[in-house]
């Protein structure tokens, strides 16, 4: 049984740490569906990596154990397993269209709460936030209307409630 897992990894913000994590996934043949990273501590000492992966339960347990034994890793949290959590992704979406397609794109963007952040007479750039499914659905609608380019951040995630991941 395959499942998807959203894993938060708190790491020492040092040179090469991202390469270690990515190398672990490629070297052991694990999937990376998305991966994001940015410093999160006030002093810049810690970074948080959010990685969305998939595999059997045994593989996902392995991924977590392998991540946890990397020297600069402080904490590994399987948000999918540990309870309710929020996932968000941001996308910038360029649609090049004229006439009816342009009107329809704008109408759908409004329905999906995408913001227009750039416009010319023949193009829009939409900014949209949501989970991956919402983004996928919007992109599917834009495709026949003149979808020209997409830039997505990959998912970031956090547990609901008072429980916090700290070093």
């Amino acid at each position: 049984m395959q499942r998807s897992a959203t894993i938060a990894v708190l790491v020492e913000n040092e040179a090469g740490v991202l390469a270690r994590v990515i190398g672990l996934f490629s070297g052991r043949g694990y999937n990376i569906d998305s991966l994001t990273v940015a410093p999160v501590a006030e002093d810049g000492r810690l970074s948080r990596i959010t990685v969305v992966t998939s595999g059997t339960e045994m593989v996902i347990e392995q991924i977590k154990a392998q991540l946890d034994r990397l020297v600069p890793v402080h904490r590994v949290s399987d948000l999918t397993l540990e309870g309710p959590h929020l996932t968000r992704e941001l996308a910038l979406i360029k649609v090049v269209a004229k006439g009816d397609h342009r009107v329809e794109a704008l109408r759908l963007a409004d329905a999906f709460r995408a913001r227009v952040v750039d416009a010319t007479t023949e193009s829009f750039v939409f900014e949209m936030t949501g989970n991956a499914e919402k983004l996928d659905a919007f992109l599917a609608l834009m495709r026949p209307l003149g979808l020209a380019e997409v830039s997505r951040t990959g998912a970031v995630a956090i547990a609901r409630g008072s429980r916090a991941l700290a070093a």
Partner: protein
Amino acid sequence: MSATTAHPPAATDLRPGAEVVLRALKDQGVDVIFGYPGGAVLPIYDALFQQNHIRHILVRHEQAAVHAAEGYARSTGKVGVVLVTSGPGATNAVTGLVDALMDSIPVVCLTGQVPTHLIGNDAFQEADTTGITRPATKHNYLVKRSEDLAGVMHDAFYVARSGRPGPVVVDLPKDILIKPAPYVEAPKPGTPHKSYRPRMEADRDAVLQAVRMLKRAERPVIYTGGGVINAGPEASRLLREFVRLTGMPCTSTLMGLGAFPHSDRQFLGMLGMHGTVEANLVMHGCDVMLNLGARFDDRVTGRLDAFSPNSKKIHADIDPSSINKNVKVDVALVGDAGLTIAALLEAWKADETPVAAPAQAQWWQQIEEWRAKDCLRYVQQGSIIKPQHAVKRLFEMTKATGRDTFISTEVGQHQMWAAQYFGFDEPNRWMTSGGLGTMGYGLPAAMGVQVAHPDALCIDIAGEASILMNIQEMGTLAQYRLPVKVFILNNEYMGMVRQWQELLHGSRYSESYSEALPDFVRLAEAFHARGLRAKTADELDGVIAEMLAHPGPVIADICVAKDENCFPMIPSGAAHNEMILGPGSEQNARSVTDEGMVLV
């Protein structure tokens, strides 16, 4: 590291980086390093020249420096230290690093690097050493700031020896070695590391659960691995106490040999691909398995879906990622092997449940029947030396000397025969490349062992193909008067390759014949060593005796049967109860499956 920046030391405390490196080594208890100089590490070599605390052994190839450090580490329990230059010095060391990673050997490897301002410029002898060694090490560092230098050095030793041990690289740009740097003392033992804090003591409830399962077992087995060796001699002592107290049969992986004495009745010999019949059938038929410090490696399990099908499994390992990696287990004991065995002992004594004595007696009766097959039996007749006989005689004759004996091996048939026919009664006496299977490991490893134990008998059991992969180290033996004995089982073939070609590839011996071999006797003499040769069975004992008596290094070229195969053998993709016992055994007819053919 952050501590050094928080409290900048007075300018008077600053010393050149190379001196800081050596002071850190000294404070970490290092008395010997294995290395090879070059442009980027000249400042360290200059500092070495001006001190007397640390001895440097000049190897002939950087790969050998790492294997020597492995031999040193494996035979002493200390961290082995390597010093090589940038670029090719570092890349040559990579095979040794991966070897140490696979076999969990603590090594710190210092690599030179071009100065920080040239990094990334394709400078002379520049290589992306941290990039190349990232998957080859447990951890690595590139020191870019002088104030981090001492802290990184101490951290490297902590990481190399803590938890599941492994190799650590510290990449040292030349300007960092020259510029003044502050020294900081190593953190006091017990100071928590900022992020790497491996679990040492197994969960108490899991220990109790394990003991409950073991107490009720009717067909138990204890299967031990390199983790028990890594946990130190006390872990081996506790293992003996536990095995004898429980009365259970005990088998060992290749890496674990010596933790439990081979001469004990409760020891079943090595298990796995070339393990004994009794060990493998016990693994197959047991109802409770206690794995202590082994990792369910594919050489041990054979076909996974047929591995020990009816047993409850308890797995003690210091590395949580070993748990449920290959084999799903029922109880996990994450912690140091020695502490875990101590906890099991205590819980066993406290649990008043009587063991299932009649069932276990029956189990032992079954085991003795399997043991009676005498699967390692061979017949030495005629003048051609059987390789098994050569190892057996080497074992008996070294034992008769009463000297503390350390055995290393290269990789191949001779390695398996050494594991089968040389008995080990103590831990840390057996150095072999188990995980990576590195031909060329044995000679430099024996060299490192001999450096650590100058008065001991250090023998590399070798094959004629493997030995040529690091033969240049004969020069190092001569330079430092290291009396290592190289015992070559010379069958003029890459024997294990030949064996697989015979069994799996229709006896098409593609490129496995050792053509144009050197004359090993004259080769030894060219390296200022003694060269000996045994061509017939009646010469064997004389050659061994002369080798053991000679005070200096020796190459003994033992010309053995060319077509001998290593048995028992679990063929690729087969299960423990599908062993090939030897020529003519009925299992030989069984063809290996397509799935088996793809396995190595």
